[in-house]
């Protein structure tokens, strides 16, 4: 899940896995895990706070009602360190959870290696073409489906109505208007130190991606069957130039900062616009975390693209999958069915997340937040579907690129260097 980088690092420390995996011969029986029939206790791993307690209670009660004698145990996991924990636990027939949630960008890591159960035959029952297509794609490998969408969410723009009014601005309709507004807001509030017309910390390529994609560029493309860095292409260059402009003339965020804790500068009155996921509203509304008194001065709109349609922002969300080593696959399948049921998915919508099924989009409601969510997701994009993409993120190539641009570096030269590194990473993991 793209948004989870909060205090990332500490826990990746966990995985200073200078080494590896004795498989201890525990490998090849993946397909032959003895199955137990009849009632049993099955374990579901859910991550972070996106599935609130009432939803978990409902899921447990409903599952146990539909499967008399069986029990559902939900174990909450943290995003940080999740990949390490999945890497070990999914490999153990004794310890594996039966059903797991993974970030949509993490799903590919596990589908191609045989950690998940093939559930292609289950897909029609779960909703078939109604399931969010890009998530199904992220959970598929070699024509088989291993993971299906759980929920989605994308960022939209939170803006200060009062500052817009003071500068005589309307909600921008196109990318051009948006950038102009961001610059003007910064100029009009120059007396506030570190003020951002549009808040974009230097490392935040995930939100900066929208400008690259809107200009028609991309991080990497497939050429003659090989993935190569695409940041030097003219379209990408245009997008990155715009990013550079925003860094220099619209943002006042730290040039090497990350996007954690956006509520702090926002509540300190240093931000006029920020591109954030829907839950940001909850942070602002919390009187201990945010600044509820400011909330009524805040409006939202989807980031507009050059053509006036919503700009392509990074698509976040989760997939759900069954462990290949689970010994209760029948029950696990029933659980996945229940999780993808309209009843359960509607509850995600009520919590402000986009449900896994296209047909449920209208359940989000019709206030401005709901509308912005729906519109943002409508045109959202995923990072390049290259098999080795995780290693590009792992090497922090894009953070370095964006920090370099934020510092006022030469866009073309920085992009060229980043392209070389991206190509190298993508090639070496093929």
């Amino acid at each position, binding site marked *: 899940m793209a948004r989870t980088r*909060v205090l990332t690092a500490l826990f990746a420390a966990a995985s200073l896995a200078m080494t590896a995996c004795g*498989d201890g011969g525990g490998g090849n029986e993946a397909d032959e895990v003895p199955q137990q029939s009849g009632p049993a206790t099955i374990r579901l791993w859910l991550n972070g706070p996106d599935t609130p307690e009432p939803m978990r209670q409902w899921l447990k009660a409903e599952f146990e009602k539909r499967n008399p004698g069986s029990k559902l145990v939900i174990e909450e996991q*943290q995003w940080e360190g999740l990949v390490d924990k999945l890497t070990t636990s999914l490999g153990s027939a004794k310890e594996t959870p039966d059903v797991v949630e993974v970030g949509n960008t993490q799903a590919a890591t596990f589908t191609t290696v045989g950690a998940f159960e093939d559930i292609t035959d289950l897909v029609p029952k779960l909703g078939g073409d109604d399931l969010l297509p890009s998530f199904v794609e992220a959970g598929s490998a070699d024509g088989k489906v291993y993971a299906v969408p759980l929920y989605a969410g994308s960022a939209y723009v939170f803006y200060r109505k009062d500052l817009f009014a003071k500068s005589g601005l309307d909600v921008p309709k196109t990318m051009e208007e948006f950038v102009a507004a961001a610059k003007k807001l910064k100029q009009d509030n120059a007396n506030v130190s570190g003020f951002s017309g549009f808040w974009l910390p230097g490392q935040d390529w995930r939100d900066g991606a929208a400008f690259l994609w809107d200009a028609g560029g991309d991080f990497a493309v497939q050429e003659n069957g090989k993935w190569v860095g695409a940041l030097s292409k003219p379209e990408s260059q245009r997008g990155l130039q715009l990013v550079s402009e925003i860094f220099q003339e619209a943002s006042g965020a730290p040039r090497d900062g990350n996007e954690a804790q956006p509520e702090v500068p926002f509540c300190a009155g240093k931000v006029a616009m920020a591109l954030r996921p829907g839950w940001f509203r909850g942070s602002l509304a919390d009187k201990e975390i945010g600044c509820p008194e400011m909330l009524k001065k805040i409006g939202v709109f989807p980031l507009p693209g050059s053509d006036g349609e919503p700009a392509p922002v990074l698509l976040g969300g989760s997939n759900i999958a069954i462990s290949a080593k689970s010994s209760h696959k029948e029950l696990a399948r029933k659980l996945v069915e229940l999780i993808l049921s309209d009843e359960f998915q509607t509850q995600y919508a009520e919590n402000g997340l986009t449900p896994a099924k296209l047909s449920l989009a209208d359940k989000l409601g019709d206030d401005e937040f709901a509308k912005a969510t729906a519109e943002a997701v409508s045109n959202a994009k995923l990072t390049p579907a290259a098999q080795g993409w995780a290693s590009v993120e792992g090497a922090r190539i894009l953070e370095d690129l964006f920090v370099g641009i934020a510092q006022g570096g030469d866009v073309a030269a920085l992009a060229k260097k980043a392209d070389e590194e991206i190509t190298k990473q993508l090639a070496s993991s093929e």
Partner: protein
Amino acid sequence: MIRSSRRWVLSTAAVLLAALWAFPVYWMINSSFLPQNRIRAEEPTFVPVDGTVAAYERVFDSGFFSALKMSAVVTLITVGVALVLAFLAALALSRFRFRGRRSFLVAVLVIQMIPAEGLFISQFKQLDAWDMLNTVGGLSLLYVATLLPFTIWLLRGFVAGVPLELEEAAMVDGCSRTQAFLRVTLPLLAPGLAAAAVYGVLQAWNEFSLALVVMTRPENMTLPLWLRTFTEANRTSDWAGIMAGSALIAVPVIVFFLIVQRRMTAGLVSGAVKG
């Protein structure tokens, strides 16, 4: 006169250094009493005068004691076993000459150099095969192995520092070998054992990576795993909760230290005995 005024200067310097070193700790405690939106703000709050204990209430309500118990059990077992094993090994290494002694010493040293954090995946597989995942024994086994090299080396020095003649003299005075050991040698080793115990307790108490993969079930969480649940307790991390939880985690270690610290200074007195 000169001596006492110099002592006074040194004492003042020590207290100032203590304040400097403890400042981040103070900042943690300070933050634990603040609402989240005042922890990082335009104007830093240096003293939480109108603070809140809400974070502590949250922390106590979310399974602190169960994690405390788990950590306490693992730490006690780990440190106890590590001290006994390391002590026996130190005894063998400093009081006996035997074949393989030198290779053993070097091997222990090299083990310390291996980037051992990375072994966790293989260690997981192995504990899995032995049905030791999610057990106190399994985690303690890994911890003991981590502590042993340094502890052996430290204790070896201390054991070698106790002259055999002292023990022999005690035996001449009618003590049995065991009595001589308990009455004469052991007290002289106290500072070394205390230092090793402090080291071991801190390592086991705060270890995160191995606990993460070995203790996969929520009911088996140790304190560092428990603390981490606050990072995603809500849409944004519960920083005040993390700071409050950290402060609580540190308390038992400080208490433990206050108990053993007398032992660490005992050597100053006993050292004179040797002369």
